[in-house]
């Protein structure tokens, strides 16, 4: 260990620490210059993130495909040389098809509720230096995106816009532990508050102690004043578990989100809310059970020879 740092070293260290504390104080006081610096940085990084997304999409899908192929290493080695070019084209095409399919489903959902949406692609997922669950999308204030706008996928709620620059925005995902959304149960109209907890499930807390929920109940966004941050009627998730603890004032439960947060290639930001509340119009159709054919075999005893 080095003994002593010298006066110059200490002076430099103190100066830098004071500067950083000065920056924190400015940020806490809401000085717009710092927000501008962040937005400017994002504006500069935006094209690089978009390029990175385009370049790395085949790589990300390629690794995913290898995982699912289930073939032996030797077979892959032999086939890779022969098919590399073809496979790359196929992956790019599959990626485009997947995004097209997601986009179509989002537009179907938005069209049913008469939401005005801006479709965006995910260009970055979270950050290694942050504890919040976020994605970065390739739309910003130039596409009329503002903070506190609802973000949806083809399945339902994804999150809410937290930061906006000219051409990109950061979306806080519904899985973030600080995420809160007012919900109502489709049909019964009971209301509650849903809290993210860092996974694909969340916690529902009902507000009325006289009401009850049951497994399978569908939850929709209740909507906010002036429709920000949440527009009404967006499917959120369904109840998978109920906590009937005697000590609870009101019932609580576990909710599984409809959105698949591992597959957010394309999302839509709701820039215009519907004139009328869509009500339960967006409740996802329950899967129809397939009838299982049953075969009944009647055993007929063969005639026994009589002596």
């Amino acid at each position, binding site marked *: 260990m*080095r003994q002593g740092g010298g006066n110059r070293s200490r002076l430099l*260290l103190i100066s830098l620490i004071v500067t*950083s504390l000065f920056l924190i104080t400015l940020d806490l006081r809401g000085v717009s210059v710092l927000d501008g610096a962040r937005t400017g940085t994002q504006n500069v990084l935006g094209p*690089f993130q978009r390029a990175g997304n385009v370049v790395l999409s085949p790589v990300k899908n390629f690794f995913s495909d290898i995982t699912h192929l289930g073939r032996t290493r030797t077979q892959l080695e032999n086939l890779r040389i022969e098919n590399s070019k073809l496979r790359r084209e196929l992956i790019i095409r599959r990626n485009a098809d997947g995004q097209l399919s997601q986009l179509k489903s989002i537009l179907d959902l938005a069209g049913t509720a008469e939401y005005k949406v801006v479709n965006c692609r995910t260009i*970055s997922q*979270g*950050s290694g*230096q942050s*504890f919040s669950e976020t994605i970065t999308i390739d739309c910003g204030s130039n596409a009329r995106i503002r903070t506190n706008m609802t973000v949806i996928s083809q399945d339902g709620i994804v999150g809410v816009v937290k930061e906006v620059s000219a051409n990109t925005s950061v979306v806080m995902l519904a899985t973030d*532990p600080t995420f809160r959304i007012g919900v109502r149960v489709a049909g019964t109209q009971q209301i509650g508050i849903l809290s993210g907890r860092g996974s694909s499930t969340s916690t529902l807390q009902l507000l009325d102690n006289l009401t009850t929920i049951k497994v399978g109940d569908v939850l929709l966004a209740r909507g906010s004043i002036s429709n920000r941050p949440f527009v009404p009627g967006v499917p959120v998730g369904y109840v998978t578990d109920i906590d009937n603890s005697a000590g609870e004032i009101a019932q609580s439960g576990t909710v599984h989100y409809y959105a698949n947060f591992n597959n957010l290639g394309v999302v839509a930001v709701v820039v215009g809310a519907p004139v009328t509340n869509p009500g339960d119009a967006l409740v996802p159709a329950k899967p129809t059970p397939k009838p299982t054919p049953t075969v009944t075999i009647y055993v007929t005893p063969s005639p026994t020879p009589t002596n």
Partner: protein
Amino acid sequence: MLIRPISLSIPVFLIVFTFQEAVVNQFNLPGGGFSIFMIFALVWAVISTPEIAALLGFGAGFLMDLSLSSGGRVGQWTLIMIVVCYGVSYLGYGDENISGNPVGVVLFVVFASLAAEVLYIVTALLLGVSVGNINQILLILLGNFLWTLAITPIALPIFSRLHLNIFETRSSL
């Protein structure tokens, strides 16, 4: 005297920062992933003098603060990186068993990265920045620790060679 190496360091820092934001952040890695930029800054800090390490920490932390996805207050990462970079350099510089030994550098970087993350949580709590629940924090700390432990030995030769070329004072590891 330091103007030349510092001015040469700036584009290198910007390139690594852009690589972190445009490439590394593209992958949704388990356990929260890793920050190649933080690894880079810490490697340079370990093999630099404390004065340079503090300046490097200031620059690296300020860039991290400018990232929209960093989530915290502007200046928060700056403060943490100054303290951590100066700390690792102060402890390691002059001791060849640490700064001259790749294993020592890797261990210093890994634990310094963990310390930086913990300091971030502590300062975030003090400044009223939300950091999530305890389970998620522990998962990310563990994930980040393991990722840094895996990535640092791979990146160390490149980063130390860059440091050698720019500062021309230390031997490459």
